[in-house]
């Protein structure tokens, strides 16, 4: 059963997975190559800033891959009014669990691309001796971050159902309104506190606010 669900999700997601793999594999090399051609590689601060750019890219890719993998299966099922899943001889909760685990397994594909891409990008880079490349650490952070973001997007999609998009837009609108209101009235934005709770350990998105440096001390 799991194999069948995994295969189906692979079939639906393979095009976007291919794009994530290409991005995860090539973009770090491009960032490192282009970055190093513009900065003095003897300067630690310059090298660190190049490593930071690569890290920011990985953070964005993790989020994008997570949201893409979480939403697509539901959207396709919903288009067919969930006839397929509901006609299966397994309870809905079990089916959702299988969908969830299948997505988490597929997330390993861009993670491996990120890992290999980072190794390739930093292998020939002239890094000062006091700095080091962290391709494995970054790949682990990528997977954990993508997994949490995937779980959050999956929860939003499967709980809000067809209203998931509206809920997401409503959240963004509330954030934007509160930010604008606090800016106009000169108050401390309450979003800063909420943001800190979400992105500071043990908040769900704390890995995103951690160290995303491909090259670091």
């Amino acid at each position, binding site marked *: 059963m799991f194999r069948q669900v995994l295969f189906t999700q692979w079939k639906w997601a393979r095009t976007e997975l291919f794009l994530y793999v290409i991005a995860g594999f090539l973009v770090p090399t491009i960032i490192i190559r282009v970055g190093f051609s513009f900065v003095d590689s*003897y*300067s630690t601060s310059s090298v660190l800033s190049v490593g930071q750019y690569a890290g920011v890219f990985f953070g964005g890719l993790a989020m994008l891959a997570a949201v893409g993998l979480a939403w697509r299966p539901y*959207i396709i099922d919903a288009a067919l009014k969930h006839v397929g899943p509901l006609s299966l001889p397994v309870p809905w*909760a079990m089916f959702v669990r299988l969908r969830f685990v299948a997505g988490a397994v597929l997330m390993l594909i861009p993670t491996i691309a990120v890992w290999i891409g980072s190794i390739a990008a930093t292998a020939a880079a002239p890094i000062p001796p006091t700095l080091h490349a962290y391709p*494995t650490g970054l790949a682990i952070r990528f997977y954990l971050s993508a997994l*949490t973001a995937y779980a*959050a997007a*999956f929860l939003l999609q499967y709980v809000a159902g067809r209203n998931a998009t509206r809920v997401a837009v409503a959240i963004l609108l509330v954030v934007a309104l509160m930010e604008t209101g606090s800016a106009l009235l000169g108050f*401390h934005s309450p979003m800063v506190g909420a943001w800190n709770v979400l992105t500071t350990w043990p908040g769900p998105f704390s890995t995103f606010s951690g160290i995303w*440096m491909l090259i670091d001390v």
Partner: protein
Amino acid sequence: MFERGAQTRVALPCALLLTLTLLAPRSGVSQTAAEMRARVVNARRIAKIARDSTDTLRHVHGRDIPPDSMSAGALILRFDKEEVPPRLLKLLDGAVHQAWASADSQFGEASAAAVNGTSIWVDRTSHRFLWDRFVENVQLELSGPGGGGRSTGTAMPITQQKLADEILDLVGTSATRAVPTNIVTWTGYWTPARTASDETWKQVALDLATSNSSATRACYAGAIQSCESALGLTELKDSLTEWYSPDGWRVLVESYAAPKDLLAMEIRRDCVEKRIAATCERLARTRPILLPLNMTSRATVLGLAIERGGRQAFARLIRSKGTPIQILAATAGISADSLVGEWRLRSLAQLPSSTRPSAGEATAMLAWTIIFGFAATRRRP
């Protein structure tokens, strides 16, 4: 309600917006207009409090304040008891005893000499701002027997730890008066009055790992003589060539503000772009040479020497004569190489963790993933 294509059209921009929102720089890095406005308002309040505190301190100095309103060991606080509420009195009592315990363990038998007959004046101010917001500030001022001193403030929330830290900060200034002049100059007019925290060691580790000096890089790799040179403990004939390699000269020149004069720009280009070492050297010599390791790093060496030397270390420090490296070795009671080697190992041990998430971080992430995944199964379409 939504067709599949329409949903995708809405979902993709939403995903992109969410991504950008989550990847936006943290509040510590950048600030929104609202945060900036709040900070400006806050800064104005702090400025008012500081102004009022200074005025009150002047007023307090003019009054008859008992010479020992509160004391712990040789540490004396002076304040007007009528002006200090019982809650703050309790905090001050705890803080002065905590600070003395720390100073006593740092300076040992010479603790009294470190305090040097000085007393600390305490003043408290409080204000009520718009919407009844209460702001309290405690100003501490070091006052030596020969006059002069410095002051420091503690803003809300006032805690025993914060007050003890500020008192110790002033004790460090007081202790500096007893230290040999060449050590005072070498550490940047500062004597640590407590053992360096892990955070301080982390700053030193970052200083060591990110310096562009060739001496520091050799130190990082394990050359103790280079550590001593980078710390400014050895006699230097030419700091530029001894601290920096030709590549380092170029990085130094890059760090200078770009000139506006056309000829100067051309010369700078010769160094930065054409990488002509002689030009870089000439340009680098036009400015003071950047220290390979900063004063915090130096202060941790002195702190470590005092820590390693035991309870008699500070007494030896104030009695010692010679070059800074000789005084540090005498203070620590071990050879300078051993002291600097230990300093290097201790700072490198505090290098910040790499990109790899910690076990706690990974556990939290997996827990959130399971919670979200489980919650998603609760609703049937």
